[in-house]
């Protein structure tokens, strides 16, 4: 993986993904090691993001790397009309790896084609967010002790959620049984379902969490947004079905863990935070270890 950009989760083979997860496990045991002390990491955030940027910067700092960058394109020459290519070529002169988030889909792939240093995609518009996918997989493996043959439920907006699409596709390599819980209007797109069918895996579709809660090992929550509905009445009818409460967990399996890419708005009641099933903040913590693993693998330090 040395010097290899990560743009889309599909760029990594199953064995490369597992290798990153194994390396991340090492960082969880020992997160502060000065192995990147001679490296400079730049974080180019052309659109705001709290979690992803801070998580990358924390990962880099804990390994001793220096971090440069910006978190608001308004303060950069992009505002003056500089092309992405020119920005990337310039920043590549100052750093060993570039972590980039950009509002346009495909920007990260383009950056990786022009950049002499590797690019890590931290989100390119509605397209890909591969490090989220890796940290989700890490969290699944850690809580369940394995990735194979699990029952995973995806809840909420399965139509537009890019994290859902990437994770479903990645988990197709692990004999997963999928439980897809969404309003009619926000079902998983057929191109993603095709990946499940191609691998002859089982999937079930439901309209409510209750129908599936006793069958699953992982409940992956996402937010159902009002603006996704053409008909506001339809939104009012369904919105409460996708808010997870403590009461809904009474029939769950003992090993169930709840994941959420965050930020949460109201789709998981705060009362759930204190249950043994809640795992979303640890999931965010795991993001640091996975990003440490990626940075050190790409920079050739492990």
């Amino acid at each position, binding site marked *: 993986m040395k010097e290899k950009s990560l743009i889309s989760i599909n760029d990594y083979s199953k064995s490369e993904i597992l290798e990153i997860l194994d390396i991340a496990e090492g960082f969880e045991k020992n997160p502060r090691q000065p192995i990147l002390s001679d490296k400079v990491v730049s974080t180019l955030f052309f659109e705001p993001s709290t979690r992803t940027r801070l998580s990358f910067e924390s990962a880099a700092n804990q390994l001793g790397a220096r971090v440069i960058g910006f978190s608001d394109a308004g303060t950069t020459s992009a505002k003056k009309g500089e092309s992405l290519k020119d920005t990337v070529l310039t920043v590549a002169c100052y750093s060993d790896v570039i972590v980039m988030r950009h509002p346009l889909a*495909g920007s990260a*792939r*383009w950056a990786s084609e022009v950049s002499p240093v590797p690019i890590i995609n931290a989100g390119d*518009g509605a397209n890909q967010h591969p490090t989220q996918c890796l940290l989700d997989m890490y969290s699944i493996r850690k809580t369940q002790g394995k990735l194979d043959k699990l029952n995973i439920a995806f809840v909420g907006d399965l139509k537009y959620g890019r994290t859902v699409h990437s994770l479903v596709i990645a988990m197709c390599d692990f004999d997963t049984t999928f439980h897809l819980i969404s309003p009619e209007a926000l079902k998983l797109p057929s191109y993603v379902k095709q990946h499940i069918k191609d691998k002859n895996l089982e999937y079930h579709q439901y309209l409510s969490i209750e129908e599936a809660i006793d069958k699953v090992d992982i409940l992956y929550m996402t937010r159902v947004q009002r603006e996704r509905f053409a008909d506001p009445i339809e939104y009012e009818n369904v919105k409460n079905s996708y808010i997870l409460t403590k009461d809904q967990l009474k029939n769950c399996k003992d090993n169930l863990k709840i994941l959420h890419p965050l930020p949460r708005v109201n789709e998981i009641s705060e009362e759930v935070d204190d249950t043994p099933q809640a795992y979303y903040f640890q999931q965010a913590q795991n993001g640091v270890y996975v990003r440490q693993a990626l940075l050190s693998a790409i920079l050739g330090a492990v």
Partner: protein
Amino acid sequence: MQKKELQVSAIKNGTVIDHIAQNHVERVLYTLNLSKYKDQIYFGANLDSKKYGKKGIIKVSNKFFAPEEISKIALVSPTATLIEIRDYEVASKKQVEISDEIKGLVKCVNPNCITNHENVLTHFEVVNKDEIVLKCRYCEKNTTKTNIEFV
């Protein structure tokens, strides 16, 4: 024996684009920018075809198409046949072919794709040659036959 009557007049030199999918003649003319062409053009639509039921045909005098133009024809009408005529004789005949990758020719359908905002040459993988489905190398969205726009 009665001589078979041509449905569209013959040309002396040039190219015949035969077996154009029904209702696609206009699209091919437009795609190849033939409305500005100065020499003779004959075309016919909804002609009988043994192979396809109905077909279209375009005959362009003194014009031999470049590979890039042939790729465009293939994207608009993958069933088309290209026949080069020299002195009323068939000099060559071939089925148009779609390559595995398309660079530059086509615009990405996704308005939020980087290729529609910066000076980036579009680049597609042809994921389905029959239905014409082009997957953008950058934004990973599909551009299909019905929404193809040329650069």
